[in-house]
């Protein structure tokens, strides 16, 4: 598996009248939506999304993005990405999938983020989230992330056009941890099942962002508390000592 997707993003294909008809029929239910239309659908078809993970959070995320017609999905995971790519192609053969190894350095991560329109982390180690956050902050690219803590599931985002003073994902994670302090751990079975809900939410926010709509997740955190089947929105403030974004004031 390669780290660098750049050479995979250049392929183009002439479309025939039959292709156009197939395109219209496949995406007809989306094209008629007021916020999508033909232009929005083509935007999705031309978009490339980097998706980290292949577990219960990544699967609905990948399938929703594929169903919506996101043109290229780069699936980055240390194992299992080929299997998820095959599932995506089964659902929508028009989507190009590429299985890649996750970036191992800041240089590789920034190169990846610059090559795609959106990066979504569906679980993974804290170190990977921190690396992607650093890269997203460095090159001012959008990043959405979902992850699990013992007490709750979380979804948050950092926008490309971050106003100075906006919190990065490091600040978000710290704020969420403080907010959840003292709360009892959730039932692991409920947490496991609820990961799919976060994956679906990440898919919705990814599509909204690709279509140019604002996302409620930018610089905010949504907590899913499975014991109560409830969501909480956590407004996040930038941490003055944040090692990533403190200098951006």
């Amino acid at each position, binding site marked *: 598996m390669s780290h660098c997707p750049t050479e995979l993003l250049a392929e183009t294909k002439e479309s025939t009248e039959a292709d156009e008809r197939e395109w*219209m029929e496949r995406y007809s239910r989306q*094209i*008629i939506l007021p916020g999508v239309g033909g*232009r929005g659908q083509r935007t999705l078809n031309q978009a490339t999304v980097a998706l980290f993970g292949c577990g219960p959070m990544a699967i609905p995320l990948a399938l929703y993005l594929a169903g919506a017609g996101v043109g290229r999905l780069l699936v980055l995971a240390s194992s299992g990405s080929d299997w998820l790519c095959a599932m995506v192609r089964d659902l929508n053969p028009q989507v190009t999938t590429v299985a890649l190894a996750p970036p191992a350095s800041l240089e590789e991560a920034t190169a990846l983020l610059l090559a795609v329109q959106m990066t979504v982390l569906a679980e993974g180690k804290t170190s990977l989230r921190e690396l992607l956050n650093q890269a997203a902050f460095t090159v001012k690219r959008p990043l959405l992330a979902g992850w699990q803590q013992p007490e709750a599931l979380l979804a948050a985002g950092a926008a490309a056009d971050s106003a100075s003073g906006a919190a990065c994902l490091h600040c978000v994670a710290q704020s969420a941890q403080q907010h959840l302090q003292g709360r009892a751990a959730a039932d692991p079975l409920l947490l496991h099942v609820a990961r799919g809900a976060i994956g679906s939410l990440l898919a919705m926010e990814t599509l909204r962002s690709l279509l140019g709509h604002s996302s409620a997740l930018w610089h905010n955190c949504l907590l899913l508390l499975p014991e109560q089947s409830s969501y909480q929105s956590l407004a996040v403030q930038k941490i003055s000592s944040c090692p990533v974004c403190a200098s951006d004031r």
Partner: protein
Amino acid sequence: MTESFLDITHEVCPMTFVLVKLRLETLSPGSRLTIRLNGGEPLANIPRSVQEEGWRVESVMEEGPHYTLVVVR
């Protein structure tokens, strides 16, 4: 004013409105689009949908077995 024509009498929902919407997206302000459509579901839905997209329905006329809808942006 640009004039154009679209026949959707051989289509069924939702392709009727998909074709209309895709054509409308290519037209500039001030353009007029004449659409030939069937009665029933297309006649009930297409005029309402184009108005929701910000177009003005200029006229709807019965012509033989079909209808002619004229919309202006």
